[in-house]
């Protein structure tokens, strides 16, 4: 029964993503309106507080809020060090970790609404036969050059600017700068029929500038996502935030040393984050900071038991040749699928490559 409903890990993940998209955008219908009703106010996935209908908040919201209003202002007042500053931040991280411990970075690959939306855009691109651009050497530049951006955004926009705002150094409009540039804020509020977050504040230059960046990102993501897999995930500070804790969750990607691996690189082709280390490295290094635990590398590894999704000692999914053979019948490792009929007909005179 389950096998017929979810013939592949990819199908199962898509169903989970769609359910989670509903929870993170419209979840208040089930869990309730108020903050206390939410699943968590420290989710390890983007879930926007500007969306009045969501089921939980992303951990980056209280992080900015506490650093701005508690730590920054607390330092200025130089009192109540423990109860006013450290404890709220600590409690926020503890609540975050209670969730993160269970499925780790799967929050990125299975729960995050923006990740799901980007995957849907990517699937549309594949169905319309739009050529895939890999973010790797010899293409748009080395993927490694993009990697530090997420850490810079985490340090600068989630920690530093809220702190300097709380200290009174930067203007109040820089109190939650990551939320202001977050495309998920625009995307999820638009999904609830609210255009307010798409509109830019015109009475404050800083807010205007930050909002403009968010809109540039969402615009780029909508069109660029047709040709590049997961464009925003690569610079998402929540990916960096989760990477800090990724070794502390039992959920992980396991690729033990094997002599017959490292030649085909199909796992890297399948990886929506274009992580070359998954094919080049083994052991601890193969589970890279950019990994979202989507499991595609394990699905598309043609060798038995080379790549596994594991929770502690338990293997939840392991690569197998038989599974690989069936999987590539429906979708190629880079996500290529049979384009829609009218796209195929239009492309026929030019080339037949899309039908590969």
């Amino acid at each position, binding site marked *: 029964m389950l096998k017929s409903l979810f013939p592949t890990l990819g199908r199962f993940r898509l169903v989970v993503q769609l359910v989670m998209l509903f929870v993170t955008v419209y979840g208040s219908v089930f869990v*309730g309106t108020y903050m206390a009703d939410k699943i968590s106010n420290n989710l390890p996935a983007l879930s926007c507080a500007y969306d009045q209908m969501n089921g939980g908040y992303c951990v980056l919201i209280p992080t900015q809020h506490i650093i701005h209003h508690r730590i920054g202002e607390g330092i200025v007042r130089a009192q109540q060090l423990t109860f006013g500053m450290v404890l709220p931040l600590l409690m926020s991280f503890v609540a975050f970790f209670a969730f993160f411990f269970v499925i780790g970075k799967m929050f990125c690959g299975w729960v995050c609404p923006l990740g799901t939306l980007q995957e849907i855009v990517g699937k549309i691109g594949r169905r319309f036969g739009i050529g895939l651009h890999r973010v790797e050497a010899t293409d748009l530049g080395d993927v490694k050059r993009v990697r530090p951006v997420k850490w810079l955004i985490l340090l600068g926009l989630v920690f530093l600017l809220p702190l300097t705002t709380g200290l009174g150094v930067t203007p109040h409009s820089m109190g939650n700068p990551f939320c202001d540039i977050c495309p998920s804020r625009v995307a999820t509020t638009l999904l609830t029929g609210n255009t307010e977050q798409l509109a*830019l504040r015109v009475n404050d230059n800083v807010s205007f500038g930050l909002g403009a960046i968010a809109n540039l990102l969402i615009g780029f993501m909508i*069109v660029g996502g047709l040709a590049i897999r997961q464009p925003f995930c690569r610079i998402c500070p929540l990916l960096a935030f989760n990477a800090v804790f990724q070794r502390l969750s039992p959920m992980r990607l396991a690729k033990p040393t094997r002599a017959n691996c490292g030649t085909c690189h199909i796992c890297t082709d399948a990886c929506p984050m274009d992580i070359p280390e998954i094919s080049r490295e083994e052991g601890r290094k193969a589970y890279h900071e950019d990994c979202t635990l989507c499991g595609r590398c394990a699905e598309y590894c043609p060798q038995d038991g080379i790549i596994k999704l594991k929770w502690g000692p338990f293997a939840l999914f392991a690569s197998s040749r038989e599974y690989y053979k069936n999987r590539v019948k429906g979708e190629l490792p880079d996500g290529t699928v049979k384009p829609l009929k009218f796209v195929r007909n239009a492309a026929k005179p030019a080339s037949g490559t899309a039908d590969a």
Partner: protein
Amino acid sequence: MKRTLLFLLVAGTLAPAWAQHEHHAAAPAGAGAPATESRRPPADRAWTQQPLLLPGRNPRGERAQALLQPRGITAETVTVFAAEGPAERRKVAYPVSPEGVKIAPATPQIGNYHWVVAREETPGAVKVASTAWYFGNPGDSPKELLKAPKHELEIVPDPLPREHGRYRESEKWRFLVRFNGQPLASQPLTLETEFGSRNSFVTDAAGFATVLFPRDFKPAKEDGEHAGHGRRYGKFVLSAEKDADGKRYLTAFNLSYGEDGDRNRSLGWGAAFGLIGMLAATPLLRRRNGAQGESKNA
């Protein structure tokens, strides 16, 4: 085909963007400001005759304490109802002094919404002022707190705006009117705002009234007049009266409401930057020979 789709996408996005942008440009923020400013009631002038519990100053930014000032009601104490905490702290009366009444959450660690009531009783009348106060710490949802009857005639928000939200101009919100814990049908309800609006609503058979907050904020001054987070707030009061058991019951619920989210925002600019982002990504859509289905995919 792809060019056609791209053209439709660009045209579809541009049209509303231009329309919104021009609409915004036609009504600059400062237009009409001098005429309307003179009509603004001074801060100390009464904008309503209804009883109120107004927030006082909190210069030290205390989170576990708030100062409220009763207006239009004579009460020796103000009662604070909490959603959680020790039983003896769920309902606490605080004495009213000349500068107001200092209230606190059930315990310093417990926050979220608390319900605040001032009550005045004379031989022929019961007058109640009520408001909600949010203490910036985690705490229980106010659902049960709102459900529990707290005095005779009540106006109960359904729901209260959640954290990060609030009542705003042009929005519709539901309120339940109860008398002795029972919903009151066909009960008139009056909304007054500090900007001079006054509207009446009537509850339905289930005791609910849907209240439309008027769009009555004056245009912002060009010197950047605004409260925290760049938004402006105004005061409102909802009131209801009922005669029963030889007494006249008057109840009022006051809180603040914010300006419409569309004010000081431009959907045109927003859409334009979104479009620029889209255009910046369009070179990626160009088909490249051999880009798909390369050798390892086969």
